[in-house]
């Protein structure tokens, strides 16, 4: 216990304002704990989202002192600045209310990027054996642990400036499937990620990589898509 913390929380929808709350400081406490404390002790109408509290589900991301973070795994002591915390909803998404951003555009873009597995076999076929050290599997493994938290999407200025841009997470997902030898949808997938808002809109800032709580590297995945779409185009497999 060491005194109080001043916490500013976004209240309202797109139109709203930051409201200050005084929250007791604990020795170990996450940003999500702070938000929960305010909801239990100050204002029960505060809206926010979480589920697992252990960095698995990806539902608790918010903007903390200007930076998108997974709040359940972010210790207050690491991010507090001069006794203050400012917590808002994720950037680059519509605000539903308070700290809850509307994730629908984010997930719709996963669909647009053909982020769904397209099976090449039926249940009566034998299970395909995949060598863990094959190049394709290594590439897929490096990008597979995404928890769909939207942190990268919120940190990407290309998303901010180009509403059609599919964004780092959806493209990273497309890259994992492209490297899944069991998948049968790759021509459509390459065509989908080569369109206007696709991988070629990425400027390789690496903001997505720097902020991803799982330390994934969407920039590298997108660079892979840039190469593979270019090759597919040169071979005539996809049209401009």
């Amino acid at each position, binding site marked *: 216990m060491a005194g109080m913390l001043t916490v500013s929380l976004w209240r309202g929808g797109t139109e709203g304002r930051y409201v200050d709350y005084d929250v007791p400081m604990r020795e170990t406490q996450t940003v999500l704990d702070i938000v929960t404390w305010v909801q239990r002790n100050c204002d029960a109408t505060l809206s926010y989202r979480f589920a697992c509290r252990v960095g698995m589900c990806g539902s608790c991301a918010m903007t903390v*002192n*200007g*930076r*998108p973070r997974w709040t359940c795994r972010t210790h207050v002591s690491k991010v507090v600045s001069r006794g203050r915390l*400012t917590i808002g909803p994720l*950037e680059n998404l519509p605000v539903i209310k308070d700290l809850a951003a509307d994730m629908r555009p984010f997930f719709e873009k996963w669909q647009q990027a053909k982020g769904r597995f397209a099976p090449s076999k039926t249940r009566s076929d034998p299970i395909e054996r995949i060598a863990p050290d094959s190049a394709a599997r290594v590439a897929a493994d490096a990008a597979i642990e995404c928890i769909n938290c939207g942190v990268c999407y919120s*940190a990407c*200025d290309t998303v901010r400036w180009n509403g059609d841009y599919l964004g780092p997470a959806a493209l990273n997902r497309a890259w994992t499937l492209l490297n899944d030898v069991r998948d049968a949808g790759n021509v459509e997938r390459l065509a989908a990620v080569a369109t206007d808002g696709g991988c070629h809109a990425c*400027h*390789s*800032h*690496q*903001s997505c990589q*720097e*902020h991803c709580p799982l330390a994934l*590297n969407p*920039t*590298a995945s997108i*660079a892979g898509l*840039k*190469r593979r779409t270019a090759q597919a185009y040169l071979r005539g497999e996809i049209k401009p």
Partner: protein
Amino acid sequence: MTLLAHRTRPLWIAALVHRLSGLALAVFLPFHFLALGLAISGEAQLESFLRWSEQPLVKMSEAVLLGVLAIHMLGGLRLLALENLAWREGQARLALLAVVAAMAVAFAFLASVF
């Protein structure tokens, strides 16, 4: 609203520098062609243009322009390598290296004309 923290990161600033240098080049390219045009359209005009370009201020701006071209080219090559070759860590350091190299080029030019 607090400053969005990703806009203070080195690689974000590298992207900003790349865009601004690209725009600066696009603005100054016509003047460059104008100079070339003068050079081929007559000796007298070229003479007076060259005398004009002897001025220190003009030399300074040429050095700046050369530095801008170098930073844009090196930064652009960094991006092309990042996107087309195997992934390489330490991009922020490479971007810094590009800035230092570009400044070295600009200063070397200054030293050679003064």
